C-alpha cells in the first residue's frame, strides 16, 4: 500500500472514546474546525488529521472519533491497537457515561497492555452545571487512581478545549 516518505512529520494517533451522546464528535469538531454542531448524529467512526506547529516542529495528529454505541465495538479494537493516546470522554450530566469510562479504560489497557499509555479523562458538557450528576471530586479521584489527568470541558462554549489540546500536544513533544 502507499508508503509514506520518511521526511513526513511525526504522526501520532489519538482516539476519542466514551459512551454514546457524551460529545466526542462535538469535541473533535471543536479541535479540528472550531465549530459546534448542535444536531446529534451517532458516529460510526470518523478520522481527522491535524497539523500542529510546536516549538518550530511540525507534528501531525490523527484524531479518531469512535462510536459510543456498543454496536460498533467489533471494529473498535482494530483502532485501539494503533492508538497512541486516548481521550476518555463522559458527560458530567450522566452518571452512566461516567461509570462506562471504567470499562473503556479496561478495554484500552487490555488492547494496549501499557499502564502508562497517554490517557486523559474528560468530563464534557460542563456548561450544563445545573444538570450535573458527576461531581468534580468524584471524577478527579478516579483520574488520580488511574494516574491520569482530569479535565472538564464544554464543546459548546469551547471551555478548556484548548487545554485538552495542549495536553495532547505535550504527550508527543
Amino acid at each position, binding site marked *: *500500500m*502507499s508508503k509514506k516518505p520518511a521526511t513526513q512529520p511525526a504522526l501520532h494517533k489519538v482516539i476519542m472514546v466514551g459512551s454514546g451522546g457524551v460529545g466526542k464528535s462535538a469535541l473533535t469538531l471543536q479541535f479540528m474546525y472550531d465549530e459546534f454542531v448542535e444536531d446529534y448524529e451517532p458516529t460510526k*467512526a470518523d478520522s*481527522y*488529521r491535524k497539523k500542529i506547529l510546536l516549538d518550530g516542529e511540525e507534528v501531525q495528529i*490523527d484524531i479518531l472519533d469512535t462510536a459510543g454505541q456498543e454496536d460498533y465495538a467489533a471494529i473498535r479494537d*482494530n*483502532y485501539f*491497537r494503533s492508538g497512541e493516546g486516548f481521550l476518555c470522554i463522559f458527560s458530567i450530566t450522566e452518571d452512566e457515561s461516567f461509570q462506562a469510562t471504567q470499562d473503556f479504560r479496561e478495554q484500552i489497557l487490555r488492547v494496549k497492555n501499557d499502564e502508562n499509555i497517554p490517557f486523559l479523562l474528560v468530563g464534557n458538557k460542563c456548561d450544563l452545571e445545573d444538570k450535573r450528576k458527576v461531581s468534580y471530586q468524584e471524577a478527579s479521584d478516579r483520574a488520580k487512581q488511574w494516574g491520569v489527568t482530569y479535565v472538564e470541558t464544554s464543546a459548546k462554549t469551547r471551555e478548556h478545549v484548548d487545554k485538552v489540546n495542549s495536553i495532547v500536544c505535550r504527550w508527543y513533544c
Partner: protein
Amino acid sequence: MDFESPDVMKDFPGLYASDLHKARCNDTDYSDSAEKVTKKDILIGKRKEKKDKKDKERGYAALEGESSAEESYEVRSPSKSKKSKSFKFPTKSKEKREKSREKEKEATDKKKDKDKKTERKIEKEKEKGKVDKKERKLKYEEWSDIADVLPIFGVSLKLAVERGRCHDGIDLPVPVRACIDYVEKCGLIFEGVYKVSAPKSKVTHLKKLYNQRENVDLSEYDVPTATSLLKLFLRDLAEPVFTAELLIRFEEAGAILNVAMREKHLKILVGNLPQYNRLLLSWIIVHLYNVTLNEKYNKMNAQSIALCLSSTLQTSHRLLTALLCHCPALFPNTILEPYVCPLTSSAQLPDDPELMERELLKQESLLAQIHAEMNIGFISKQREELLWEVQRIITQLKRKLKIANKDKEVVVEKPLEEKPIEEVLDNKIEDASACAVVQSDIEVTEPIAEDFEENKNFEMGDPAVDISANEANTSDTSSITSFDKNSVKETEKLEVDAQDTSLEAENLFLDKTLAILQCKNILLNDLKQSLFKQIEKEKAEILILKEQLPSKPLNSVPVYTDANCASLDEIMYLLHKENQILQIKKINLVRQIMEQQEACIDLQSNLDALLKNKSAA
C-alpha cells in the same frame, strides 16, 4: 424436438444405449444418473486430477485454500493478546504450548545454556514427529503475510470475491476485473489475444502481488500477461466456474444440436448458477465475445478462443463455442464497466455530490474489508495506516457531502420564493401528461415484445424498436425528475420546452413503429400458432415412438461376440455420423426457412402498416 445428442452418444458409446435412459434429463432414476455421472466424471475428471496434483505441488497457498479463513479465526484469537511472547518464540503458537514453554523456561533458567538448548532440541524433535497439517498452518499464519494465509488465487470463487473485492458493488475478484478491463481497453485488437501467453515468471509475480493485496497497474505490463493472469486465476479456482454440480448439465446443454433448444437450456442453467459464478461467467463470456467481434484485428474467432480457453474453464470446446454463440441472448444485461479503485488520500476528492456518494460507498466497502481482515487476524502496520487513511477519506467525503447538500438546499429554496408556485405546478402537470402518453404507448408495445420473446423458437426480429421506445421513456422520466428538482431555473425550463417538442417527434415515430409492430404481431401470432401446432404434432409423434421403444425388452440385448461387436459398433458409429450430418443439414434448412419467413413477415408488416396509413390519410 431433439433431446438426444448424437455427439454425446458418439463420445460415450453404449452410455445411453438403454431406452430408459431417455429420461436422463429428469434424473429420476437416481442410481442410473449417478452411474452416468461417474462414467462421465472419469473422462472429465482426468483433467481435474492433473490439476489437483499441480495444486498440491504448489504448496500451502493452494492446499489451505478454503479452510484457512475459518481456521484462522480460532487460531488468531488466543495469539493476539500474546503478541510479545509469540515474538520471542514464534514457532510456539498454541497457548498451551506457550504455557508449557514458560514453565520450562523457569526450570531451564537455573540450568546451563547447553542444557537449555538440548532440551529444546528434544522438544522440537518431538514436535516434528507430531507436526500435523494444522500445526504447520499455524506456523504459516504467524510467519507469513496475507498472501499465504488469505490468498485470492487458488481458492473458491466466493472467497476470491470476498478477499479481492471490487468496491463498486460488482462482485468480481479484483484480478479478473483488472484483466478484463485491461484487455477490453488495450487488447481487443491484439493479434492472437488469449493465444499468446506471457512468461510464467511474470504471471506468477503478478499473482503474488495480487495475493499480497498490492495495488497493481496492469498497464505497466502487456496484453499476454493480462490474459495469462486471467487464465491462471480461472485455472486456479477451486471449482470450475460452471460449478462441479452443473458442469455436466452445461455440457449436455451445449451439445444440443437444436439452436433454440440449446439457447433455452443454457439460459436456464446460467440462471441456476450461484450468484458469483453467474456474474463471473457473464463477464468472461461477454468479454470473450467482444474479442471475437474484433476478429478482423486479433485473428481470434469463437472457435480459436474456445480452443484457447476451454481447458482453462474446465469445459469442452463445444460448450464454450456454444456460449459464445449465444452470448447476446444469454447475457443481455452484462455491461463490462471499467473498475476505478477507491481513491487514496493523495488524490483529489470529487466535487460532484453524485460522485462523492459513489466514492463514499467504495471507501466504506474497502473499510469493511480491512476490518474484516483485521478481525480474522491479519494485522500489520501498513494495514493499520490504511485503515486510518480510508477512515479519514470517508470522514472528509461525508463532511463534503453534508456541505454540498446544505448548499443545494439553499439554492433550491431561493428560486422557489421568486417564482409563483402555480406556474411550477402547471409545468409539472403538462410534462407528466406528456409522459403518460409516452408510457401508454410503450405499454402497448411491450407486451408484444414479451410475446415474441416467449416464442423462442426463432430469434427476435426487431428489438431496436423496443429499445428506442424504452429509451424515450427513460430519457423522458429523467427529464421530469431533473425538472422537479430545479423546475424553476430558467435554463432548465428552456430545456424542458425543447424536450417537449422532441417528444412530439418521438410520439410520431412511435406511432409509426407501433403500427408496424401491430401488423407484425398479428403475423407472428399466426406463425406462432402454426408452430405450436407443429410442436404438438411432433410431441404426439414422440409419444408414439416412445410407446414403441420400451416394447423391446431391455435384457434381450444380445451378447455379441467380439468381432460382431466391433462391426456393430462400427456400423453404429457410421450411422450416428450420418445422422449427425443430416441433423445439421436439417437445422440449417430450418433456420433458413425461419429466416426467410421472418423477412417475409417484416416486409408484410411494413406493407400492411403503410396501407393502413394510406387508408387513414
